[in-house]
Structures are given as structure tokens and as C-alpha cells.
């Protein structure tokens, strides 16, 4: 029997959603300050409207839904998915008011793409937008990468036992420290220190490459935010091709590869356990799958003789494949170059890389290295069982921070999530093919959306059919939250309609 949620359930969900939305409103203070600094008065008003709307919603929820109840597991999952949805709807206000979008749905597409660190966009005339809006785009992706729930946990939640349940709902389950709020703060500490170091490196590189102090500084911060969060937004329409520099590309690659690693791994290394880098199942998995994807892409590029020499081939191939595998979406080629020069085999190599994606509990998306490692180990274990005597007890171990014995429940969970990803990749591909796109192209962009990568071969555009935009928004949302929260929200809606 399905039990209909009670008023008290809604109160607790709305109360915590309100807190998260107030957090989103406060985040808009950063682009507001940027707009004011550069004398961009209309964008400043647009951010004030956005802040006002978030405060009205958040305070309205807090005023009307005060309750003593704490969150249970289902509440936590629903708060995470519902907050992301409302944060997208309200976060899109400055985008929409800027006049650079064809519809409010397009603005929501970009905000969802930012929060989920995807990096696809429908914004038109990017090269003429304000510094304030560019700051907001990159803040969205930086905050989304760490998790908007993590932000709320860091600054707005005080000593609630239910905090961990919302944290898990956002697709993270690592506890770096005993307390989840301390964990959230640790994630921010690590990210902010890297922000300072990475931005400085990019700023110096930018100055050396001929950028001015102010533009170079802004670009450095934005590119760091987009790279570290594996977001893939960039301040210019040329993405990172704009800089025409191997040095800049290398710094970017270090940043996005670093950002794609598990926070728990970062924490282990920070706290002195450097051996974790070579033992961790995700690192081994990443090394193997990135090599495979690069080899496939190289074979495709070699066959079509795309680049004039090995160095150019390796530079372009490495950057696009690593960007795809870490689900960043930075690119140094035009979108249509994938189709018009790289060809289907190289595109499939990048598609494979995007589908597998980054590490769990990182800013990246996709199946995740940990699940690939677990499934591969389970496969090997089954093969070993088949060739061993019946009386033999075959076990397998895997290492992620601690060494654990592989059990069926772990494999089942990993398989379920991977199958869900395959489901959304297929959904987007089918819709794309239905609307007349080539199969390889539809697959490429669908996988890119579902794995929160952001590379595009030209399918995603402001003129694409509305149902495709909706499917891609769903793919980005479900892929980022790793399904469970979205399923919980759907379950809640069903329970509301059919429960007793």
C-alpha cells in the first residue's frame, strides 16, 4: 500500500528547500558585486530581482513551514531533487532578463547545465554578455560542482541530524570527517585553496599570452571554476580554443583532471596518505579507460589523416578525450569539427570516455570509475569461479580509501546506476534520432548531457526542438543527482496522487 505524504512531511521538505533557495539567492551577491564593480547597472538590477525572488520564496517557505521534525531518508532525497529544480527555475531569472535567451526554458536549460556542471548552453551572443552574467554562469557551475546542498550545509544548516540525508541526496556519500557539516566545510576548504592557486596560475599564463590584467584575471577565475567543477563553460564562444596556447591547455587539463577525482581521494592525499593515488580503484579504472578511449580516438584521427603531425594529433586528441572523460566539456576545436573532420570512430572514442566519466563524489558525472572498477572485478570474479573447483571459495577485493571484500549488494547497486545511465543516454539518443539527427551525433550529445560533460557536435542549439531541450534538462538533472533523488521525488508525486 502506498502511503500518502502528510502535511508534516511537506512542511519539513519545504522548510529545508527554502533554506537551500536562500543560499542560492545569497550566491547571487557575487555576480551582483561584479556587475556593480564594472558599472553594469542593468545586470545589477537583474541580479537584485533574482535575489529578491529567492528570498521571497525561501523566507515564505520558512515562515509557513516551521516544524520540529527532522529529515528522514525520503525527505532528504526529495529535498535534494526538489531544491535543484526550484534553484534552476529561480536561478534562471537573471539569465532570462539579460535578453540573451529565446525562451525561459532556454534560460533554465543553461542554469541546469551550470548547476549540474554540464556546460552545454543555449545562450545567444555569448561574446557580448556582461561580466556579471559571466560571473553568474561560472559561479553556478562552481557551486553546482561542490553541490548547492553542500553550500547550504556549510552556511545555513545548524546541527541537524538529517543533514547527511540531504547530502547523500545530492549524489555524494563520502564522509571525510565524522560530522557531515564538517565534511561539507572540508570540501569547500579544499576547493577554495585550489581556486586561489589555480586562478593565479591561469592569470600569469594569460598575462604571458597577451591578455590584460583585468580580463586575464576574470578569465582565470572563470576558467578555473569551470575546469575544477568539470563544468566546461567559458567566457568566450571559442571556449578554450580562444587562448591558442599549449601552456594554458596544460594548466586547464591539470585543473579538470584534479577536479574529476574523488573528494575522499583529495582528502586522503591532503592528510598525508599519498599511496592512495596508486591503490585507489577509481584511479586504476580511470587510467585504463582513458587509455582505451584515447586509442580509439587516435585510430579514428589517424585513419582520416586529420592532423598534420603527431604532436598536433596528440595535443588535440588528448585534450578533447581527457575533457570528455573527466566530463568537463572544455574544447579546443569547433563543435562541428567532430562531425566534419574527426569522423564517427574518433567521436565514438570521445562518447565512450564521456559515458564512463569521472570519479564518484567528485564534481564529475557519468558511470564513474568506481562502478566500472567494481563491475569489472565482479566479471573477473565470476570467470574465476567458473574455472575454479566447485569447492573453491573465490573472493575479490577492491580498494577505495579502505580495502573491502566485493559483495553482491555492491555489484548490484553499481549495476543499477550504470543501467540507469544507459537508460537516459538511450532516451536522449532516441529522441534525437526521432527529430532527424544522425545516430552518432544524437548519441554523442545525449551522452554528453546525461554524463554532465557538455561537449557538443552541433546537435544542441537554440533552434533544437523543445521536447529535446526538456529531455536534455532531465538527463542533466537525473545524471547529476545519480537518479535516486529524482526517483524519490517521482515516488512522492505518485504517493500524493494514489496514496491512502
Amino acid at each position, binding site marked *: 500500500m502506498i502511503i500518502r505524504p502528510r502535511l508534516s512531511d511537506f512542511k519539513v521538505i519545504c522548510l529545508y528547500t527554502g533554506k537551500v533557495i536562500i543560499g542560492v539567492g545569497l550566491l547571487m551577491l557575487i555576480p551582483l558585486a561584479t556587475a556593480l564593480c564594472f558599472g553594469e547597472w*542593468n545586470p545589477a538590477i537583474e541580479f537584485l530581482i533574482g535575489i529578491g525572488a529567492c528570498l521571497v520564496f525561501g523566507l515564505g517557505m520558512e515562515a509557513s513551514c516551521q516544524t520540529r521534525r527532522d529529515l528522514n531518508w525520503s525527505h532528504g532525497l526529495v529535498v535534494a531533487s526538489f531544491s535543484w529544480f526550484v534553484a534552476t527555475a529561480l536561478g534562471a531569472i537573471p539569465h532570462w532578463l539579460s535578453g540573451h535567451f529565446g525562451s525561459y526554458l532556454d534560460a533554465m536549460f543553461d542554469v541546469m547545465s551550470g548547476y549540474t556542471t554540464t556546460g552545454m548552453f543555449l545562450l545567444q*551572443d555569448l*561574446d557580448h554578455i556582461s561580466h556579471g552574467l559571466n560571473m553568474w554562469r561560472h559561479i553556478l557551475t562552481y557551486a553546482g560542482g561542490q553541490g548547492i546542498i553542500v553550500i547550504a550545509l556549510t552556511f545555513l544548516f545548524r546541527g541537524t541530524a538529517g543533514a547527511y540525508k540531504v547530502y547523500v541526496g545530492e549524489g555524494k556519500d563520502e564522509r571525510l570527517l565524522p560530522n557531515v557539516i564538517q565534511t561539507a566545510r572540508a570540501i569547500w576548504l579544499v576547493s577554495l585553496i585550489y581556486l586561489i592557486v589555480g586562478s593565479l596560475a591561469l592569470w600569469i599564463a594569460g598575462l604571458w599570452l597577451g591578455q590584460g590584467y583585468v580580463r586575464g584575471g576574470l578569465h582565470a577565475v572563470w576558467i578555473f571554476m569551470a575546469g575544477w567543477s568539470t563544468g566546461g563553460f567559458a567566457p*568566450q564562444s571559442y571556449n578554450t580554443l580562444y587562448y591558442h596556447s599549449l601552456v594554458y591547455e596544460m594548466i586547464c587539463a591539470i585543473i579538470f583532471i584534479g577536479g574529476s577525482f574523488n573528494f575522499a581521494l583529495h582528502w586522503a592525499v591532503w592528510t598525508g596518505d599519498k599511496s592512495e593515488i596508486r591503490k585507489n580503484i577509481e584511479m586504476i579504472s580511470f587510467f585504463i579507460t582513458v587509455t582505451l578511449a584515447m586509442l580509439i580516438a587516435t585510430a579514428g584521427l589517424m585513419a*582520416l*589523416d586529420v592532423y598534420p603531425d603527431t604532436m*598536433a594529433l596528440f595535443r588535440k586528441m588528448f585534450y578533447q578525450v581527457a575533457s570528455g572523460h573527466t566530463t568537463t566539456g572544455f574544447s579546443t576545436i569547433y563543435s562541428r569539427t567532430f562531425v*566534419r*573532420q574527426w569522423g564517427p570512430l574518433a567521436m565514438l572514442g570521445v562518447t565512450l570516455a564521456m559515458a564512463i566519466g569521472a570519479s564518484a563524489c567528485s564534481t564529475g558525472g557519468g558511470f564513474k570509475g568506481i562502478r566500472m572498477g567494481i563491475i569489472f572485478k565482479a566479471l573477473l570474479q565470476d570467470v574465476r569461479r567458473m574455472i575454479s573447483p566447485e569447492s573453491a571459495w573465490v573472493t575479490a577485493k577492491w580498494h577505495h580509501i579502505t580495502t573491502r571484500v566485493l559483495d553482491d549488494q555492491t555489484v548490484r547497486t553499481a549495476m543499477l546506476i550504470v543501467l540507469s545511465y544507459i537508460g537516459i543516454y538511450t532516451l536522449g539518443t532516441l529522441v534525437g534520432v526521432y527529430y532527424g539527427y544522425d545516430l552518432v551525433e544524437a548519441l554523442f550529445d545525449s551522452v554528453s548531457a546525461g554524463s554532465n560533460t557538455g561537449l557538443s557536435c552541433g546537435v544542441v542549439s537554440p533552434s533544437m526542438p523543445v521536447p529535446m531541450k526538456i529531455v536534455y534538462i532531465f538527463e542533466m538533472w537525473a545524471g547529476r543527482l545519480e537518479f535516486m533523488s529524482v526517483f524519490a521525488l517521482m515516488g512522492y508525486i505518485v504517493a500524493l496522487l494514489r496514496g491512502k
Partner: protein
Amino acid sequence: MGNHGYSMMIRIHGATARMTGFFIAVALLLSILSGTARSQPPGHRIGVNPAYPVPAGETPAGIEVNSSTLVENANLWNGRIVAFKGEAIGECMVRGKMAWLHLNDDAYMERNIEEGAVLGGYNGGHAVWVSAELAQKIRFFGDFKHEGDIARVTGAFNAACREHGGDMDIHASSLEIIRPGHPVRHAVNMQRGMITALLFVIAALLYGIRRIAVRRRI
């Protein structure tokens, strides 16, 4: 050698064997993939995009082309001398005696959205490698507060430039300003200012109600 050393050696050998096996498998896969692909002549399997112009033998050097044409039929235009016109955006990045420019020939080349242009899709353009001296002719670069100069360059188009790590670019030998750019005026939107004030008044009221609700709960 003690037991510990012996087991370490076995472990290292095991890891080496696994790595060797992995690389042999990968090399095999690569040879199969590239072997199949090489059975067909290179460069012939990505067809011409008929929606965009392609050069013929009699196409004159310096013919004006747009950015989409160069991207869609990149291999066919590779190495040809073309003319390209677009709005200078961003900034000029000087590298020694040369400089990088970015010229956009999209729907916003004449007038951008901040000046009231209708939405016309994504930006589109090309990177241009030109002497720093020529690049200095450009006074305005397009951004939120400026509509950039429209410049016309002539030079060799590279689908994958050998000098620049495979970038798609134009190595320009001439540059002329077609139309100078200008600053863009933004009139402050007072109506939106009023909406902002209204929202903050409502938020202040809700904050008061919230404080009362929290006190009652406690």
C-alpha cells in the same frame, strides 16, 4: 631473500604482467581499428557538405567565405587563400611580432543583442593570426559595452594548422577596417528597479513573519 621480499617480487611481476597484457591488448585493438580504417583512402570518407560552398579549380584566391563554410568543408578549403570579414571580439593577444584576433561573422556582427538586435543563434567566427602591427588597426573589440570594429582579412586558411598545434585558423597577410566599432549605451531600466524594490519589501515582511513563527515553535 626472505619471504617478504619473495612475495613482493611476485606482486611486482604480477603487476608487470598485467600491464604488459593490457598494452598488448590495446595495441591489438589499435591495429585492428586503424587497419580497418586504412583499407579506405584517407580523407575521402567525410563527404562534402553540399549546403555550403566548396572551392573548385577556378575559384580565385582571396574569395570571401564565411566561418560556417570553412568549418563545414574544412578539408576542401585547407591551404587556400581566402578573405574573411567579421567583428573583432574579446581582445588582441600579442605574441611577439604576431597577434591573435577573433573575428565573428555571426548575426551580431553589425549590431549585438545589447544594442537591441534580434536573437540569431550562437556566435560564429574564426581565429586570425596576423602581424601585431596590422592588429593594432583595431580600436574597438566587441563585448558587453562595445560593438567591435568590423575587419576584413585575407590570408591562408588552415583546417589544422601545423604551426599552432592543429588549431583551425587563418594566417592573414592583410587587414582593413570595414566599419569602426563604438561604445554601447545602456539606459537603466527603471521599471525593473521598481520590481526589485517591491520584492525586497515583501521579503522584509516575510522575514518578520518567519521570526514570529520561529519564536512560537521554540
